[in-house]
Structure formats: structure tokens, C-alpha cells
């Protein structure tokens, strides 16, 4: 079981490394969107501190969305997806591997760059730590839920826009708890409760989403 998952992860990472432009552009999208906000709302530190959690999280959702359409599209186009679906183990395992790989190249870089961007918003050290941690444990859920949408819209005209329409409403709980954790730290309430709920969401979606995604992929392959 872990052999299959690791085989998929290592292949997807290898592919991502040969196509670094994709990772870098999603990351820069994140950085630019976040940096635009102070220019739009003004440089008052109090206001920025208040906005920071929401802005960073919404930008993280959008940056994740950006890389989702390609999650299965390449494998679908060149026939690899068929081969994966015909392997003698459940397709859900393959999807789990792809979701983890997607997180490693999309969610993880966001979490690593987030504290730097948080400084732009005058966040305290505590808040920066919680922000990084929240993005770290929240983004796997984004990759997992997003995979369902990516599989459902596989091969459709205008799939990218449709994908956001399907997936963004499902991202709301992650947004609420993720931004809530940082917000609670900023206001001195402590973000542990939010973080544990966020972790629960991630575990639930990583357990459930790959199987729904596998079912959606089989529908798309018919």
C-alpha cells in the first residue's frame, strides 16, 4: 500500500521538478495577491493586522485552485490515467499519492513563504508561528477536496472556472478555521481549538476525498 503511494509521489515530484515554472508561478501568484492588499486598503498597521489572516488564507485558496486543473489533466491526456486505473490496487491509493504530491508542491511552499508575507502585515511572532502552522495543516485538506473537483471537471470545456465554482464553497470550513486560528492568536484568545479542528478537517478529507475522487475519475474514464 505505501509502496504504491510512494511510487506515485516520487513520480509526480520528479515531474514537478522538471516543470518548476508551475510551482513557481503559483507561489508568485500567492505573493503578489497578498502584497496587493496593503496597496488597496492602506498601510495602517492595525487594519493590516486585522486583515492578515483572511487575506493570506483567501490567497492560499486561490493559489491552490490555480494548480488544481492540471492535477489529473496531464495524466488523462497522455493515457497514464487509464494505466493507473488498471493497476491491480484500488485507484484511491493512487489518488492519495497524487494528493500528497500536489500538497508537497503547492501547499508546502505556501506555508514556508507565509511567515515572510505575514511580516508585511505586521503580525506578531506568535501569530506568524500559528499562521505557518495553520497553513501547513490546512492545505492538505485543500488538495484533497480540490482533487474531487479536478476529477469531476476532467476534460470539460471551461473546466478551470467550473472547478472553482464547485470547490470554493467546499473550502469554506478550512478558510474559517484556518483564518480563525490566526485571528484568535492576534486577539489573544489562543488558536489551539481552531488548529485542532483544522487538523480534524484535514484528516477527514484525506480519508474521504481520495475515494470520491477515484469514483469521479472512473466516471470520467468511461
Amino acid at each position: 500500500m505505501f509502496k504504491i503511494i510512494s511510487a506515485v509521489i516520487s513520480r509526480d515530484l520528479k515531474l514537478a521538478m522538471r516543470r518548476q515554472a508551475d510551482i513557481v508561478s503559483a507561489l508568485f501568484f500567492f505573493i503578489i495577491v497578498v502584497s496587493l492588499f496593503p496597496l488597496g486598503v492602506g498601510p495602517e498597521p492595525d487594519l493590516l493586522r486585522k486583515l492578515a489572516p483572511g487575506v493570506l488564507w483567501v490567497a492560499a485558496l486561490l493559489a491552490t485552485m490555480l494548480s488544481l486543473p492540471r492535477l489529473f489533466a496531464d495524466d488523462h491526456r497522455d493515457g497514464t490515467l487509464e494505466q493507473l486505473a488498471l493497476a491491480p490496487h484500488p485507484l484511491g491509493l493512487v489518488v492519495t499519492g497524487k494528493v500528497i504530491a500536489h500538497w508537497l508542491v503547492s501547499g508546502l511552499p505556501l506555508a514556508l513563504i507565509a511567515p515572510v508575507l505575514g511580516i508585511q502585515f505586521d503580525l506578531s511572532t506568535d501569530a506568524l508561528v500559528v499562521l505557518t502552522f495553520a497553513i501547513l495543516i490546512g492545505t492538505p485538506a485543500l488538495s484533497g477536496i480540490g482533487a474531487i473537483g479536478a476529477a469531476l471537471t476532467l476534460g470539460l470545456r471551461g473546466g478551470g472556472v467550473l472547478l472553482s465554482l464547485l470547490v470554493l464553497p467546499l473550502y469554506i470550513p478550512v478558510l474559517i478555521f484556518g483564518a480563525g486560528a490566526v485571528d484568535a492568536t492576534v486577539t489573544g484568545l489562543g488558536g489551539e481549538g481552531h488548529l485542532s479542528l483544522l487538523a480534524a478537517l484535514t484528516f477527514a478529507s484525506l480519508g474521504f476525498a481520495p475515494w470520491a475522487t477515484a469514483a469521479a475519475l472512473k466516471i470520467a474514464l468511461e
Partner: protein
Amino acid sequence: MKDRFNLYRFASPATFYPLAGALTPFFFAVAAVFGLAGLWLGMLVAPTDFQQGEGYRIIFIHVPASWMSMFIYLIMAGWAAIGLAFNTRLSGMMAQALAPTGALMAFLSLWTGALWGKPMWGAWWVWDARLTSELILLFLYIGYMALTAAIDDARRADKAGALLLLVGVVNIPIIYFSVQWWNTLHQGSSVNLSKSSMATTMLWGMLLMAMCFWMYSIAVAFMRVRTIMLERERNTEWVKTLLAGDEK
């Protein structure tokens, strides 16, 4: 055995079509009766609310519309589960026939909520947990309709839509509780819609209106599913005979 199963599968839209056609006027009539009774009770007989004055009367459509918007989504998810489990053709058609009505109900709920909120809370829109959840429900409806519309192959559209509905129905409680929790964190006070002790006439008026909305939804969904059936089954014998006759 196998043949009987086939026959059943192929016959079911063919038998459902005339049945739905015969029942549609009946459901419209019942909806009208319930509606008139509900309006009479709610608008003419029910007393003034001591907190909200006459403005509370919006409740007679706001609450039924909200109920129906949630109920229809559940029914669609139920059809989706049946469709995926037994591969029945009727279920996808039913889900697609219900979706626009469900979306309209969600819209009505938001619209009347806004018109109720303005005099009561002083704002057209507040990020109240219920209104926010209703808005997300509307997004889910729109997502479902957009997905099924984007897929050309009817069977794939049914299956993908069914899967999306099931994912949505699993997520709705999570979304609802997270929104509610978020809302209590940020608002803490003021917005509270607890309806004190409701007079029995009000309650009856609301229930009658809910029945009216329910019957109306069934009637419209039946009308819509009949069109979908004709379209989908246009190459089958029963539709061809129907079309050769004087079907209007």
C-alpha cells in the same frame, strides 16, 4: 430474470412519463388550495407580532422557502445515491429536474431574508449563520447545474452530478456548523431570530404555506422531468409513438 430487470429499467421512464403528466395538474391544484388557506390564515387572520409588528409576515414565505431549499437538496442527494447504487436512469433526470427549483427556493429565501433583515436589523444583509449557509447552499445548487450542463454525455452528467451531490450533502453539516461557530465568534450578540412564543394561527399559516411550496415544487419538477425524459429518450419507441401522436 435478466429480461425482467431490463424491461423494468427500460420501462420506468415510459411509465413514469404519463403518470407525472396526470399528476402535475393535481399537485398544482393542491398547492393552490394550501397556498390560499395559508395566505388567508397568515395574512388576514394571524395577529400582529408584539416584537416585530406586521413585518414578521414575511416568515410565511421565508421559512417555507428555506425549508424547501434544504429539503430539495436532500431529495436530490437521495436520488443521487439511488442512481449510483442501482444505475437507474430516472434518478439522474429527477435530480436535474429538481435543481432549478431548489436554486430558486434558495434565492427566495435570501431575497425575503434581506427584505426582512432591513427593517428588523437595519441592514439588507448581515453575515448571520443562516443567511450565510443559505448563500452557500445556493452556490452548491449553481455548481451542480453548471457541472451537469457542462457534460455532454447524459449518463456521465448524471453520475458526476450524483457524486457532487453526495460530496455536497456530506459537507453541508460541516459547512453549516463552521459558519455558525464563526458567526457566534464574530457577532456574539444582537442578531437573534428566536421567534418567542408563536401564536398557533401563525404556526398553522406557516405549515400550510410550507405544504403549498412543497406541492408546487413537485408539480414543477414533474413538468421539467417530462421534458428531460423526451429529450433523453428521443430514440426510444415510446417517445417516437408519443411524438407521432398529438403530444403537446
